[in-house]
């Protein structure tokens, strides 16, 4: 499954709305609570555990891509 689709599912937004520039709190749907759901979705899908500092740093789709790659995820 594409990263964009994971974001779309977790945030409840159309996949067309997901791009690298989409940022945390850039849309009402991506707030603190949704962020936790998103992290759970990414961790479950890729079978990884993110550092809490990475969870805090995950401020955009582009940043998520960078953090996932750092954690060994091939995108």
């Amino acid at each position, binding site marked *: 499954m594409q990263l964009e689709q994971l974001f779309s599912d977790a945030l409840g937004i159309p996949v067309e709305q997901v791009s690298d520039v989409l940022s*945390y709190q850039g849309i009402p749907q991506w*707030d603190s609570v949704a962020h936790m759901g998103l992290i759970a979705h990414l961790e479950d899908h890729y079978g990884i555990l993110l550092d809490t500092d990475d969870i*805090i740093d995950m401020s955009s789709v582009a940043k998520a891509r960078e953090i996932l790659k750092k954690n060994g995820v091939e995108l």
Partner: protein
Amino acid sequence: MTNLKEFARYGVKLVALAQDDIEMVRQWRNDPKIANLMLDKTYITSEMQQCWFDRLQHATDQFYYLVWFKNQPIGVASLIKVNRDAGCCEPGMYIYVDEYRNNIVPFCVAFALNDLAFEELGVSQLFGKIFANNQPSVRFHEACGYRHYETQEDGLGLYVLEPEPYLAARAHIARFIRY
């Protein structure tokens, strides 16, 4: 009265507010980004702050803590209207440092404060007041296990948190706090 001067959990340390902290806290509290979140938006002068802090030293029903995260003070947390007979109080918090105002850090602070209230003060109910139009705060409180039980005429929603729903809600989110 609690003699608890420090309480550390979830990567956060709550340290009883001290004289040396109050000017910094006053400036945070008067900053519009914080003042606008308050039910009482009154500008606080140095004299008002000092009087408040002096009264606080003798209070047995309210406790204020400086919130530390990654070795820096980032905000303020409080437990007010502590009623030991009724077993309840009202938690409050704000985070001043922009980098930590959202995301998982507010959960870390809220959980530390709630744990302190339930475990150290021994209360069984925490009460919250949130304006219905403040949806991010409503969602945050509900994610922490708060239950809405009344809305006042002015739109202020009244919420209560009890241990069982709190522990269930906390478990969902605290699993991501890996400090």
